[in-house]
């Protein structure tokens, strides 16, 4: 059965891997131009083995992660695969011998502590928790690890206390029976190896000493002191009465398959769960940044495999420059860890609601390209490359950035929706409200100085429509929405020359900026409306 399970899981895992590779290739061909892989191996190696990027990002998180990583690596290579590794290295190898017994426990302990650390962080980290959907992502993998480790410890514990196992061993490796002092050995093992016997045994110094001698003769070659299995031993010591019960039902026999089945499950899940990051991060951190070549070739995404390397750790969001934007708009798609999740959805499942897409466009628009997230990403994903390419993708999907949207929109269409918008705007929005108050622009004396000093008017040519003064006049004529839809409002450099030169001291630039806010809001609404229209038609 072990063999069947092993091979099945190996086959499944390989199949999964192949599938993923195929998927990346297929999706990749949709989104990414054919570029050489162009790998840079040194940092990748470094990052893979020592998680150097994570170390740079956060020492504590690195410490916790490294607990799991190192423990896990040990367990995989020196426990699960012991037949391939330690057996060949050490002739005398026995899993119950020190240092192996101790190291196994220690490694398991490390993983256990690390995993608890993971869970702990998930409950207390502030920024990542802003997105509940992501908060619990990957928790399956953590729990699976926990289960494997716990089942391992439980198995060991049970084996320690198990009378039947003890008796089997005695039978296999000695010729002892009741007469030849089996009881003495039992007594010794009860005291020093925590075996739980049904029968009460009389413990005296004498019997214990005899048991010790028997132990030296028969057992010591293969069994180090049980104290070194400090986790399982501790469990065993505190197990108490249920031990007999477990012994009776041969818990060791059925815990063993549980343990390896869980382990195999992990293997199967490797390509489909968070475990996959173990393979993807090396790949991601080996890849070069998005270069201009991508843009020239009109590529719209970074490589899907790189994208999949994200572990939702949320460190990127902790350094995000525009976090305050999120605090006000509560648009999760501002935070990089949410954005990348959405990007993954777009590329792999393509199921995003219009509002979500719009939010993503808006959130991504807020990005200042400060590169903080990319710089810190422990997985080495070129996040900024993604943020740069994302607008093109979204535009193709019908969610252009607001500038393009407004530019392509006829002013007429803009004006037609004016009335309905009038109700929606201005509600509870904290602004200077310059555009809403006549006195902020009515003092215009039509001298056209603002227009004359404006670099956009001077160099804009066909790119521009209105002049700053005409914007003021549109406002006076009650055409706020039309004014908001003009290109001038979007082309404005906010250089404040107009405002500085206005003889009537009208806050021309501030008004134009406020109009751009209005225009942005209007564009958002229109885009959602358009999307809804489209959906309705379909």
């Amino acid at each position, binding site marked *: 059965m072990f063999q069947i399970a092993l091979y099945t899981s190996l086959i499944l895992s390989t199949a999964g891997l192949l599938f993923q590779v195929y998927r990346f290739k297929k999706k990749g061909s949709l989104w990414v131009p054919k570029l050489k892989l162009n790998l840079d191996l040194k940092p990748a190696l470094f990052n893979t083995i020592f998680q150097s990027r994570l170390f740079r990002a956060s020492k504590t998180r690195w410490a916790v992660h490294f607990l799991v990583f190192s423990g896990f690596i040990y367990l995989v290579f020196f426990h699960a695969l012991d037949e391939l590794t330690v057996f060949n290295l050490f002739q005398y190898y026995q899993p119950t011998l020190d240092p192996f017994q101790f190291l196994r426990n220690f490694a398991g302990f490390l993983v256990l502590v690390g995993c608890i650390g993971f869970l702990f962080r998930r409950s207390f980290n502030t920024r990542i928790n802003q997105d509940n959907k992501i908060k619990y992502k990957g928790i399956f993998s953590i729990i699976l690890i926990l289960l494997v480790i716990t089942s391992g410890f439980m198995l060991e514990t049970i084996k320690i206390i198990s009378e039947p196992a003890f008796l089997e061993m005695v039978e296999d490796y000695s010729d002892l029976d009741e007469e030849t002092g089996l009881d003495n050995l039992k007594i010794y093992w009860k005291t020093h190896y925590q075996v739980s016997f049904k029968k009460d045994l009389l413990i005296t110094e004498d019997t214990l000493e005899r048991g010790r001698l028997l132990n030296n003769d028969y057992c010591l070659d293969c069994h180090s002191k049980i104290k070194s299995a400090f986790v399982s031993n501790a469990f065993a010591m505190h197990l108490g009465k249920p031990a007999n019960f477990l012994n009776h039902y041969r818990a060791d026999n059925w815990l063993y398959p549980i343990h390896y089945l869980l382990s195999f499950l992990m293997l199967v899940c490797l390509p489909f769960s968070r475990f996959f990051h173990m393979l993807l991060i090396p790949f991601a951190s080996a890849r070069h940044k998005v270069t201009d070549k991508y843009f020239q070739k009109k590529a719209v995404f970074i490589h899907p495999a790189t994208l999949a390397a994200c572990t939702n750790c949320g460190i990127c969001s902790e350094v995000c420059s525009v976090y305050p934007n999120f605090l006000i708009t509560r648009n999760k798609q501002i935070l990089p860890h949410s954005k990348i999740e959405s990007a993954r959805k777009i590329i792999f499942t393509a199921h995003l609601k219009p509002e979500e897409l719009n939010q993503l466009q808006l959130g991504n628009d807020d990005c200042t390209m400060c590169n903080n997230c990319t710089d810190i990403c422990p997985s080495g994903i070129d996040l900024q490359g993604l943020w740069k390419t994302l607008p093109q993708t979204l535009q193709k999907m019908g969610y252009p950035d607001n500038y393009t949207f407004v530019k392509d929109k006829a002013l007429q269409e803009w004006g037609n929706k004016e009335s309905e918008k009038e109700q929606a705007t201005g509600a509870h929005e904290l602004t200077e409200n310059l555009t809403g108050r006549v006195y902020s622009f009515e003092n215009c004396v039509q001298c*056209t100085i603002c227009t004359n000093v404006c670099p956009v008017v001077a160099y804009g040519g*066909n790119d521009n429509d209105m002049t700053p003064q005409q914007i003021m*006049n549109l406002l006076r004529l009650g*055409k706020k929405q*039309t004014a908001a839809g003009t290109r001038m409002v979007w082309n404005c450099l906010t250089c404040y020359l107009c405002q500085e030169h206005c003889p009537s001291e009208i806050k021309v630039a501030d008004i134009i900026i406020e109009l751009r806010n209005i225009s942005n809001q209007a564009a958002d609404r229109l885009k959602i409306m358009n999307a809804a229209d489209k959906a309705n038609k379909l």
Partner: protein
Amino acid sequence: MKKNQHPVKLPLLVATGDDIVETDVLIIGGGVTGTGIARDLTLRGLDVILIETSDLNAGASGGNHGLLHSGARYVCSDPEAAVECATELEILKKNAGHCIEETGGLFVAVKGDKENYITDFPDMCKKSGIPSKKIDPKEAREMEPSLSDETIAVYKVNDASINPFKLSIENINDAVSRGSCYLSHTRIETFKIENKAIVYARVRNQISGEIYKIKAKTYVNATGAWAGSIAAMAGIHISMVFSKGSLLVTSKRITKRVISRLRKPTDGDILVPGGVVSILGTTSVRIKSPDNIYPTVKEVDYIISEGEKLIPELKTCRYIRAYAGVRPLVSMGKGDDRDVSRGFTLLDHEKDQVHNFITITGGKLSTYRLMAEKTSDIVCKKHRVSVECRTKTIPLPSTHSGEWSEPGVLVNDPFKSDALEDPFLCECEMVPASAINTVIDSIKNNGGKPDLSSIALRTRVGKGPCQGAFCSIRILSHLHDRGEIIGQTGINDLKYFLNERWKGEQSLLWGQALVQSSLKEMIHCGLFGLELV
């Protein structure tokens, strides 16, 4: 812009020497009544010439609130007129919707207004069948936040605002497109009367100085305040009384609805929104002659002091201009001119021994169509034409050249595509060169001569805050560029135009308006030295 919508081009009247132009009906006076009659008669199949001594809406038609009464204002003083207003309102809403903004109206009483008028008001409305609805003052202040906090009673009625310029332009455009003829700047010199009938009218083109005759079967005198002097030419005496009403235009629209004071109609108690501005009025001052009228400082201050009781903001807001109109009243009685008669006077001069001469005067903007209908009825009777009036049913078409008289009109698309090729000549009201060109063509089609004043009449040019300071010279340049003006007339035209604008500003120049006008004087007197020319 749809370029193919120009009015049908008329064969230009080339009248020289003793040439006689013949027609069925000669209408004198290009106000709303005159243009209304022209359209009415044309629709009934008559051939019409309309002459106007200056240009459209030069008299009271251009000097009023632009208010379409629901009738509520007259329920106490003149219930008959009230009913007329109510019926006409419905017809106009249906047929000339593009000239009308259905704002709705509020009648508002503030502390200190007479109690019994307030309490009687709803009953009187009911009697005349005019819908009105009582509104809680608090709620009213939510609807119109600028209302005084001393508001004590509010009634909602169906008042609406109308653009009288657009109305006249559309009426005459429709008449012309159906084959009638409009001659602006054409003045009656004399009537030739023989056998108790007018044989022909000698007219003079005010611009070219040409004199010629127009021979018609019937002559309609629709000259409003000048009805008396025209009638006198035919030897008929009409006793006219002139009452000047002044109005103020604010720089922004203060209320959404028409606001009237809930009291016996007097001065400064109506505020009518018109596009992006509000118009506050009026006064009632007896004057001797309807010529050369303008609002005085005293009137302006009085109107504001009355208006601010209703809407306190009127005290501090910026005013763009003031203008005045003359109510022509055929009066016999005494007292306030408002009491005399707001109903119209239709005189068939058959009784005065001139058979083919009709005078229509008085009345109000709200009932212009009815006045035109009644007048046309008489004309038709004289012509033995038995076609029913059709202005009740046939909607007034909307033409392109009428569009630009609308405040705040934006033909949106050109901005995106043609902004570069189509500069704004008037920046305040955003009138592009293409619009000016359309209007120039339309004026020329009607046989007129495009100049600053006639363009300003048909567009928003000069009506914004700068009051012609910047746009005048730009448009003058444009006219020269197009070759519409040749020779010296340009400067005189400019001076005349600026002076006309000035009449409307000089009484309310303080604060920012004074700043603007100082700038205007700096440009036109300081730099160009126009006062020396």
